[in-house]
């Protein structure tokens, strides 16, 4: 297998992971594609090391996260003092609630319901404002602690906690999550 073929296989194996990381942070497909391309251009330059490395996936994920955050820093006004005030999304505002699939309507086809459900959760996540989505994604998908997120984004620990809480609240509202017997 030539080096080019090896890289092609490497790209094929990891492109979904890199794209997912970028897409969940940026919530815009064209930006996520640009970042994915940039990540693999970097990977190509270091392919001799990465080819044999068992931590290549982690390296790609870290680079994808860093490039996505750089992209956000460069192109969006973010983490401003009043960031939580402007909570409108790009695709029509804050008030939309996702229509959930009815398990009865699909005749109990659990797999179909689960797939639809995942798509809805993904859409709900991407509809969050960046100030809420980014720390939430870094916490849940990248496994960063609140302190690490605060340091990474250059914001206070309190703001990270507040934004993550509000992000979860938004998801709960949009997905109509049941929390059991609690009452707010």
């Amino acid at each position, binding site marked *: 297998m030539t080096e080019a073929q090896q890289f092609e296989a490497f790209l094929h194996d990891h492109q979904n992971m890199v794209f*997912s990381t970028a897409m969940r942070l940026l919530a815009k497909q064209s930006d996520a594609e640009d970042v994915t391309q940039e990540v693999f*251009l970097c990977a190509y330059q270091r392919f001799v090391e990465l080819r044999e490395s068992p931590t290549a996936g982690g390296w790609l994920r870290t680079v994808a996260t860093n490039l996505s955050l750089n992209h956000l820093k460069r192109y969006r006004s973010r983490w401003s003092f009043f960031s939580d005030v402007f909570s409108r999304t790009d695709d029509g505002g804050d008030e939309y609630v996702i229509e959930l699939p009815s398990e009865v309507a699909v005749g109990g086809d659990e797999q179909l319901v689960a797939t639809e459900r995942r798509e809805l*959760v993904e859409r709900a996540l991407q509809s969050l404002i960046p100030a809420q989505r980014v720390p939430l994604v870094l916490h849940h998908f990248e496994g960063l602690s609140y302190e690490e997120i605060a340091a990474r984004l250059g914001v206070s620990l309190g703001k990270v906690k507040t934004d993550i809480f509000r992000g979860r609240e938004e*998801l709960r509202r949009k*997905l109509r999550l049941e929390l059991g017997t609690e009452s*707010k």
Partner: protein
Amino acid sequence: MDPDYEQKLEAAVRRELNTLGELSAPPGLETRILRAIEQRATAPWHRQAWTNWPQPLRFASVMVLLVAFGGLCFGAWYFTHTTAFATAWESVSGALSGFDLFRRTLKLLANSIELAFTSLGPVFIAGIAVMLASAYALCIGLGTIYVRLAFGRRET
């Protein structure tokens, strides 16, 4: 409010997010990346990053820069030892003498401020500082309230 609300909320959201797998990259992305890599690899050396230049060219470019820097240093040293430079320096010094007055005024102002501080005492100065900080915090607070009231989301 349920005291465990936050934990329940976190658990519920985590449960939902844990169901998510990887997203599928768009079909054309792989081709696009491979094309970009090919374009970058076949680009002429002068359009690539310096680290990707051929070894002799990198060495030559460093030598050229060193020679240019050396020449610049020597030229500057040589120029400062010419009579033309001495004449020019004299005329510039004469033109800049007006700034001396400005410097003396600034010094006088600084001395006045220092005198005012020493005669007013540290308690008075600290009081002024606290007042200014409070006024600043008040402005920030009022601004926040105003923006939240004006642009905040209205719960339905």
